[in-house]
């Protein structure tokens, strides 16, 4: 059944929507990287964005918390809590505290493990020592890093392994207690074991966070995500339940992509 050009799932009424884009267009100069993207991100679920390189999925992700400001030109609407994020009235800094982001390459700050987590909290006005300590512990536990680093919290974060660094970056992001966590190919620089740990961490996190993850790794998308959006040449061509996407894709291009047939 691969007859349609485009298939977008309709969520039933009980599914809360955390974030919704309407008619989103993203331009780099004259080049249109994303056109007409309409996507609803379901709350407390993991949504995977897949697609070939250059399909615009990372660009799309980075636009959700306006990390593309000043780099790309974003037109259209991004709805979050009945607010259009893509407008001048929105304070981007306050917004990014609600919509955090973790990047492809682990980027811990050249500070201690603890400071990596407390740094942004302190900048945002949290001064209570006790409260900070608690945040450090809970966020590291949620990121499944606590046991490995609890004895060396004051050591430089640059001494951690790649997988540990990435989980620290996740801990750092969730320490701010955001609503939504955006991850841009977070496992692409990691070895298989670290990747598995990271995936487990993400699955556990979805009880409290809405997660959007860009990944090149199709088995990963299949393993951890609840919904999958397939990007092709700047268009969202299929968005469906992950199980359905991978077992009975509605769009031929999706089928070609997941079976590796690009001919």
């Amino acid at each position, binding site marked *: 059944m691969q007859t349609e050009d485009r298939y977008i799932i309709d969520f039933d009424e009980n599914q809360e929507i955390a974030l919704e884009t309407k008619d989103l267009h993203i331009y780099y100069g004259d080049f249109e990287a994303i056109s007409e993207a309409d996507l609803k991100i379901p709350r407390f679920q993991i949504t995977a964005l897949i697609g070939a390189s250059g399909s615009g999925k990372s660009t799309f992700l980075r636009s959700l918390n306006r990390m593309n400001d000043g780099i790309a030109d974003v037109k259209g609407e991004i709805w979050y*809590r009945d607010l259009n994020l893509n407008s001048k009235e*929105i*304070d981007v*800094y306050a917004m990014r505290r*609600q919509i955090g982001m973790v990047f492809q390459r682990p980027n811990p700050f050249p500070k201690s493990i603890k400071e990596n987590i407390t740094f942004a909290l302190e900048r945002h006005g949290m001064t209570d020592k006790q409260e900070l300590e608690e945040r450090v512990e809970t966020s590291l536990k949620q990121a499944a890093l606590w046991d490995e680093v609890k004895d060396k919290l004051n050591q430089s974060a640059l001494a951690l392994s790649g997988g540990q660094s990435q989980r620290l970056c996740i801990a750092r992001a969730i320490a701010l207690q955001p609503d939504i966590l955006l991850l841009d190919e977070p496992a692409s620089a990691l070895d298989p074991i670290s990747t598995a740990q990271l995936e487990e961490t993400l699955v556990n996190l979805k009880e409290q966070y809405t997660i959007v993850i860009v990944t090149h790794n199709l088995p990963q998308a299949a393993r951890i995500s609840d919904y999958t959006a397939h990007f092709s040449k700047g268009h969202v061509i299929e968005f469906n339940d992950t199980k359905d996407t991978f077992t009975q894709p509605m769009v031929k291009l999706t089928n070609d992509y997941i079976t590796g047939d690009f001919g």
Partner: protein
Amino acid sequence: MDKIRESLLKPSRTSKLERRGKLISLVSLSSICLVVIAIFIFIAFRGLATFTSDHVSLVDFVTGTVWNPDVEVNGQPLVGALPMITGSFLITILATALALPFAIGTALMMTDITPKMGTKILQPVLELLVGIPSVVYGFVGLTVVVPFIRDVFGGSGFGILAGTFVLFVMVLPTVTSMTVDALRSVPKNYRSASLALGATRWQTIYKVVLRAATPGILTAIVFGMARAFGEALAVQMVVGNAALMPSSLVAPASTLTSVLTTGIGNTVLGTVQNDALWSLALILLLMSLTFNLVIHFIAKRGELKQ
């Protein structure tokens, strides 16, 4: 309205910080630009007074060979700047020309002949040569170079030649390190292609590497000349400070910078004698600008070729 929505709609402390930080850094940058503009305005204002309020003709100033601002002939002070202009150019050209073979030779050692050893020894040598203050160069010039010239050529030893030797060492590191950059930017495969065709190392260097690096080496030369032209104290200490047309390389002469350093303190601001000095400073400033323009021009042409 929930709290989170509210926080998104009003400017956060962070955004205020951002605006303030951006402003602070913009003010710092602007202040540097302001200083540059002020330098040109101040020195042009003083330097043009010779021609506007003292009514010296620009042609006389640039071509006159007698510098004696205290003496007036037909109501015009004798301010012929040609001796200093000649002195400056002569020293600059001679010193850079003398430095060039050494610079290219040293640079080639660092890039093509023995890159490892060359860099290990020669890099610190160049850094130290740059680091030596110009008055120390002047002092060594005064106590070594000048007596040496006196012994060999007779006379006082002071003059263009002494200045040339001192400036040669001073521009050497500048020209060398920029030549190194130029040579390094020549793609490796140019070299391997030439060697693979059976050319010897020297043929490769001479016919391929040096040719490809020519624009960069030209830039290095102009940079060296700019440094030489503007150097004041080291030259002033060995050039002899006689505002005369240089009759020989070993006769006392002067440069724009040497007359300036000795003169400004001995004249009163606003007098003809003083104005004439500021005109020399203006020439110096304009020459520095010219060197900059030439460097930009070479860079532009290099870009076009690629």
